């Protein structure tokens, strides 16, 4: 009775299965494999259980960069989300200008990460950089290479410049999807501009903001190239974020077991925080 008509159809699933296996499962298992062994060379390896995890969790380097990383991601979201919404709100709704705005906004997104780092590295230099030179000329002692505060500000500014567009574009599409009837109804109800934003636009943006915030959190939490090019993690360790710590560990010190354990912990943190953000935001959306 319950015969399946054509079993060959299962082969259609094979490519996806292989792709997932090679892109996600196999590398992840490799990392898991590393994380439970002490590896000296190709033949000398010992099973150490959860030793690496214990050690990594006690490592002050990890603690420091984890805290730095959280502060950084938090600042990124705090600045980019409201700024992105503002930009989207200010954009013209239709016509040539809106097309122009879209193109201008898209430009930073198209520039490769390391180029962004390089641009800002030059831009901020006190001797030849446009920003650095004028800041110093105005009497502000600005030096991202020497002052950790300046370095932080520059990395943040760079990230804001690079990624606010993403939030703005997402919000812009979200705003465009709101039917005119809503604005008309609100105007008839004599709603103020703020009330329109608070009760119509913001609620309707909730789903795109959820995607935007998750993307920006995950991306900023894994930031590597730009600060590496700009400051190299310095001055001192002030702009060394998690992924740079990890790279130093894995490649610089060839500490594969420790790096493997670190990677997994890193991965779990991102997963956990993303889940928390997602749950919190969908809960707000349900409006209970």
């Amino acid at each position, binding site marked *: *009775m*319950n015969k399946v*008509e054509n079993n060959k159809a299962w082969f259609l699933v094979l490519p996806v299965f292989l792709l997932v296996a090679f892109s996600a499962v196999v590398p992840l298992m490799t990392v898991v494999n590393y994380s439970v062994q002490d590896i000296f060379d190709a033949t000398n390896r010992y099973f150490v259980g959860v030793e690496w995890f214990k050690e990594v969790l006690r490592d002050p380097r990890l603690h420091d960069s984890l805290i730095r990383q959280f502060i950084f991601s938090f600042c990124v979201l705090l600045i980019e989300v409201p700024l992105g919404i503002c930009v989207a709100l200010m954009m013209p709704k239709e016509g040539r200008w809106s097309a122009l705005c879209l193109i201008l906004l898209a430009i930073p997104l198209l520039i490769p990460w390391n180029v962004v780092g390089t641009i800002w590295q030059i831009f901020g230099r006190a001797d030849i950089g446009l920003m650095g030179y004028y800041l110093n000329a105005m009497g502000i002692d600005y030096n991202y290479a020497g002052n950790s505060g300046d370095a932080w500000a520059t990395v943040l500014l760079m990230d804001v410049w690079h990624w606010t567009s993403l939030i703005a574009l997402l919000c812009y599409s979200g705003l465009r999807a709101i039917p005119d009837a809503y604005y008309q109804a609100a105007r008839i109800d004599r709603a103020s501009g703020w009330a329109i934003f608070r009760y119509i636009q913001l609620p309707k943006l909730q789903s795109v903001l959820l995607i935007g915030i998750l993307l920006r959190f995950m991306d900023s939490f894994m930031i590597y190239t730009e600060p590496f090019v700009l400051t190299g993690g310095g001055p001192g360790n002030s702009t060394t974020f998690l992924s740079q710590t990890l790279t130093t560990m894995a490649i610089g010190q060839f500490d594969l077991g420790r790096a493997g354990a670190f990677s997994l912990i890193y991965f779990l943190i991102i997963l956990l925080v993303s889940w928390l953000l997602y749950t919190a935001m969908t809960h707000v959306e349900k409006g209970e």
Partner: protein
Amino acid sequence: MSLTLEKITKVVDGELHINDVNLNFEPGSFNVLLGRTLAGKTTLMRLMAGLEKPTSGRVLMNGADMTGVPVRQRNVSMVYQQFINYPNLSVYDNIASPLRLAGDDKQTIDRKVRETAEILRIENFLTRMPLELSGGQQQRTAMARALIKDADLILFDEPLVNLDYKLREELRQEMRELFKVRNTIAVYATTEPNEALALGGTTTVLHEGRSIQYGETAEVYNFPDTVACAELFSEPPLNLTKGEISDSEVTLDQATHFPLNADLAGLGRGNYIFGVRPSHLALFPVNEDDLEISVRVELAEISGSETFLHVRNKHLSLVLHLTGIYQYEVDASIKVYMPTHKIFVFDEDGKILKVPTRLPIVNQAGQISGGVQHG
């Protein structure tokens, strides 16, 4: 081609969607499935088409068991509520698509496409794209595609529901004509009793996944077996009220009385459910034994040429179906008249006991015969 459903049951996620349905459709017949939303019409059609497998029971075509056979291997067409066409193919190519898939030669395809398009009166739009057409024309295109296949079974799932009423009127009439000459079994799902009556053929009344009555459309309409069927097959629904028959009088909902007449005398004392068709209630007394009832107007719904008057008093809630326009303010006090000789009587479980005797019954020959007493 005949289609038989044998003890068909369908359970989805522990919920009974179709409950022990037995049906038999003759070749060339036009069959209406009448039922409210969620009565199981769509599920039943999907089972007939082979898009779904019944949890138990058998689907037979020409006596051969087709239960497990997938839709691709059956010769079935389906027309949906939404106007489903290939948006990037012209109307011509849309209609031709089933034949091209079947590998027919060019001349045959061309001849059949033009023939079918003519039947559905879209022969002048063959080069257009579906989205350039009106809703009615789009649905005609979808119907042409279903017809051209010469399918053994054509399923219509409320195909007119998304059209405005003028187009609905037009297409409804054409549907009848279209299927007169065909050897195909047509199954047509609808929520509207008037559509079922206009289409004729046989009607199956579905209620909560069960087939509660099946027969010639006019027969089912005139002789409902149960309260549920009478209620479903009447638009607006049959006016129903509980009541009692004593030795000398009939009481509706405890407060409205009239003397027992010859019509109802045979039933004997007891509690019953009484039903009156909305079209049998009137604003003026027609016969001298009509019962006068004082009511308040809830709403006069006017549809161009007819009025559906919703009224109620403390005990009764009635709907009148009137020809012509009658405007009333909400809550106006009026009197309505109930013909005491045109009352359906059901027992307390809802089984029919009596169809009104003075109600004329039209048999197949189109002549009027006297009433028949059931039960």
